[in-house]
């Protein structure tokens, strides 16, 4: 499964980056490809390209603040609070596989 996503927390200092790492590690563990854009206090980093968004099977928005969703029109978008990623990153990715009905390719 191809995953793209955004992480953004209230202060943009810590959780944004921790959550990115946790999503990436969990997705890779399950055999997915993944790219996560961070929208923190230093501005957007690891920015998703139009092509990456187009090719993605699913978009994860792990955000506690408003982010621009217009780039993801027509995509399957899963919006969750950062806390879910902090608590159980593997659980989140597994659940998404279930939801969009794509089997997990590795374990």
């Amino acid at each position, binding site marked *: 499964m191809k995953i793209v996503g955004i992480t953004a927390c*209230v202060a943009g*200092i810590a*959780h944004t980056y*921790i959550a990115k*790492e946790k999503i990436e*590690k969990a997705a890779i563990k399950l055999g997915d490809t993944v790219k996560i854009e961070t929208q*923190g*206090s230093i501005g957007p980093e690891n920015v998703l390209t139009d092509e990456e968004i187009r090719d993605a099977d699913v978009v994860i928005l792990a955000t506690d603040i408003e982010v621009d969703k217009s780039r993801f029109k027509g995509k399957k978008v899963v919006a969750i609070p950062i806390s879910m990623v*902090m608590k159980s990153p593997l659980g989140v990715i597994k659940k998404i596989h279930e939801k969009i009905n794509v089997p997990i390719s590795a374990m």
Partner: protein
Amino acid sequence: MIEPTVESLFDPKIIDLNINAKTKDEVITHLTDLLYESGYLKDKDSYIKDIYFRESLGITGMGDNVAIPHGKSDSVLNTGLAIGKTNHMIPWESYDNQPVNIIFLFAVPNNDEGSKAHLHLLADVATRLGNDDILKSIKSAQDFDQLKNALFK
């Protein structure tokens, strides 16, 4: 302005791996004292107020006995990373409902200009905290050198 290098962010003066505090307040006060005495803050009380404002927005216990409180504050003169290891488990609002014994207190000035490079370094540290393997080596660090390697290498 301090050059934004790992060396300027990893400051043993604001690291205490042997804290005897028993409460969250005591830990935050102790680490804030270290930041103040080392010239990172111009005012302790308002910095602590800003830490608790951030606490009010969402919990900072990230699980695995680690907490990452942070204050973005007018009282911060230089971006700093205070690190504490406590001898007792400290009750702290955490994603796994467990107490903490390692605390990373981020001090970030309110004016972003000039501190961007430091914020990049802090973001790198945060990224590492999200990696279970690196977190393990951070938690097992016994001295400054081991801690520095785990955090930045």
